[in-house]
C-alpha cells in the first residue's frame, strides 16, 4: 500500500532503553509525505518515548530512524541542526518558555534560524498566533493562559518555521470536547494548507479516528498494528479491541512471577 509514495519518516527495528529497562522492543514504521499518522496505545505503552526518539532527544540502543532521508542516529550535530529547521514539535505539557511572552515563544525559532528583521519576525509570529486563534494574545505570559490556549500557543511555536514534519504529543489530553475538536480541525487545516506530514500521539479515540490517515497501535513497546481507521476498527486483535472498547486488560497472572514481585526476590532464587 502506498509504497510508491515517499516515506519521510522511516524507522527500522528501533530498540530503546531507559537505564536497564527496555521500553521499545524493535519498532519499524514508515510515515508518508503529507500523511497524518496517529500513534495510539494505552498509558505507558511507550508513545511519548517513541516520539522522543523520533525527535533525536536520545540515542537508541539499536535500529535506525530516518527523517527526510537522513538517519538521525548517525547524523552529526551540524546536520541535526539543519534538520531541526524542518521539524516542529508540540510537547504533551506545551513546554512554553515561562520567562518569555507568548509572542516571544513563537518568535524564538525564527530568531534562531533566520536573518529576518525584528518587524518581519513579529508579523510572522502574529500570523501563526492568528492561525491557532490566539490573535492578540502575544503579550501575555504562558502562566496567564488556560490549558487549551497553552496547547495552541505551543502549536503556533511548532509551526513558526513552516516545518515539513510536525510532531504533536497528546493534543487533546485534559481539554474539553469542544476545544479538543477545534484542535483536531486545526491539525487537518495545517496538513491541507501547508502540506505538512504530521505525527500525532494520542489516546483519545474520537480524535484519532477523526484526523488519522493511518494509525499505529503501540502496546508495551511493540507495534500491534499499522492501518487505516477502517482497518483498526475492524481488527480482530484482542488487545486492539480492548483499547477500542475501553475493556480492562485481562492479564494472565503467572503465579511465580507475581510472587517474585511481591517478595522482591529474583525469580530463580524463589
Amino acid at each position, binding site marked *: 500500500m502506498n509504497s510508491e509514495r515517499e516515506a519521510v519518516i522511516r524507522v527500522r527495528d528501533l530498540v530503546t532503553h531507559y537505564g536497564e529497562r527496555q521500553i521499545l522492543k524493535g519498532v519499524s514504521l514508515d510515515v508518508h509525505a503529507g500523511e497524518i499518522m496517529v500513534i495510539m496505545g494505552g498509558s505507558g505503552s511507550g508513545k511519548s518515548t517513541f516520539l522522543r526518539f523520533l525527535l533525536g532527544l536520545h540515542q537508541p540502543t539499536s535500529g535506525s530512524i530516518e527523517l527526510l532521508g537522513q538517519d538521525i542516529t548517525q547524523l552529526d550535530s551540524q546536520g541535526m541542526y539543519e534538520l531541526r529547521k524542518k521539524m516542529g514539535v508540540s510537547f504533551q505539557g506545551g513546554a512554553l518558555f515561562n520567562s518569555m511572552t507568548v509572542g516571544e515563544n513563537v518568535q*524564538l525559532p525564527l530568531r534562531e534560524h533566520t536573518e529576518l528583521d525584528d518587524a518581519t519576525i513579529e508579523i510572522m509570529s502574529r500570523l501563526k498566533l492568528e492561525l491557532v486563534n490566539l490573535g492578540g494574545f502575544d503579550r501575555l505570559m504562558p502562566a496567564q493562559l488556560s490549558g487549551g490556549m497553552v496547547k495552541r500557543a505551543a502549536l503556533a511555536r511548532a509551526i513558526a518555521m513552516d516545518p515539513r514534519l510536525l510532531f504533536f504529543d497528546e493534543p487533546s489530553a485534559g481539554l474539553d470536547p469542544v476545544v479538543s475538536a477545534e484542535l483536531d480541525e486545526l491539525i487537518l487545516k495545517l496538513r491541507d494548507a501547508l502540506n505538512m506530514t504530521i505525527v500525532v500521539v494520542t489516546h483519545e479515540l474520537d480524535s484519532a479516528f477523526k484526523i488519522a490517515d493511518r494509525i499505529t497501535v503501540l502496546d508495551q513497546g511493540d507495534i500491534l498494528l499499522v492501518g487505516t481507521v477502517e482497518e483498526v476498527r475492524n481488527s480482530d486483535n484482542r488487545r486492539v479491541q480492548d483499547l477500542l472498547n475501553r475493556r480492562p486488560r485481562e492479564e494472565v497472572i503467572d503465579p511465580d512471577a507475581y510472587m517474585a514481585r511481591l517478595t522482591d526476590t529474583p525469580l530463580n532464587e524463589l
Partner: protein
Amino acid sequence: MNALRGLENLGRGTVRAVEEVGYLGALLAESLYWLFVGPFRKQPVRVEAVFQQMRQVGVNAVPIVLMLAFGVGVMLAIQGIHTMKTFGAESKVVIGIALSVTREFSSLIVGILVAGRSGSAMAARIGTMVVNQEIDALRVIGINPVRYLVAPALVALLIVVPALTVLADIAALFGGAVYTSLDVGISLAAYAQDTADVLTVDDVMQGVNKAFVFAVLIALIGAANGFGATGGAEGVGKVTTRSVVMSISAIVMADMLFTFFLTR
C-alpha cells in the same frame, strides 16, 4: 557487615563524586566550545543574554556587596586594633587590614554572596526548565541548552565576580579606615597613604584571580545541579539548595588551596 556496607557506600560516593567532577569539566568544555566556535557555526552565544545576566548577577548585588564588605573592614579593624594593642603597635593595623582584605576577604565574601544569590537562581531556573520540558523544547528548536543558558552565565560571572571583588576591596578598606581613624586617631588621608604604600598589584590580583575561579565554580555547579533536576517543584527545590551548599563548599576549598600555594 555494617563496616562492609559503609565501605561500599563510601566507594559509591566516590564514584559519584568523580562522575560529578567529570560532568562539571564537560560543561566547562562545552561552554568554551560555544563561546569560541559557536560564532563560526552561526550559533553564537547571545550578547544580550550576557548583559542581562550581568545586570542580574552584578548590578543588583552592588548595594549588598558594599554593605557586607564595609562591615568586614570594620570587623577587621576592631580585631586588628585589639590584637595590636598588646604590642602597642596600633598604627600597624593598616597593613593587616590592607593585606587580608585584598588577598582573602573580598573575594571570599563576594564568592559566597554570588553563590547564594545567583548560583541558586541559576540552578532553580534551569531545574524548572528541565521539569517543564523547556530544555527539550530548546533542543528540538535546535538551540543547544549549554550555549543558550550556561555560556552567557559563565561569561557574566567571569566579568562580574572579579569586578565586585575590586569594589569590595574598596568598601572594606574604607570601612577599616573609618573605624581606625575614629579609634586610633589616624586621619583618613594618612590611612590611605599607608595603605597605598603597603599594597602591591600582586595583592589585589590574588583576590581577583580567586574571583575568576569562584565565578567558574558558581556557574558550573549551578548549571550542573539545574540540569540534574527531576520530579517537579520539589526536585527543583532540592537541587537549588544542593547547588548553594556545593558551591560554597567548593569556594572555601578552592580558597584554601589558593592561599596554601600562593602565600607560603
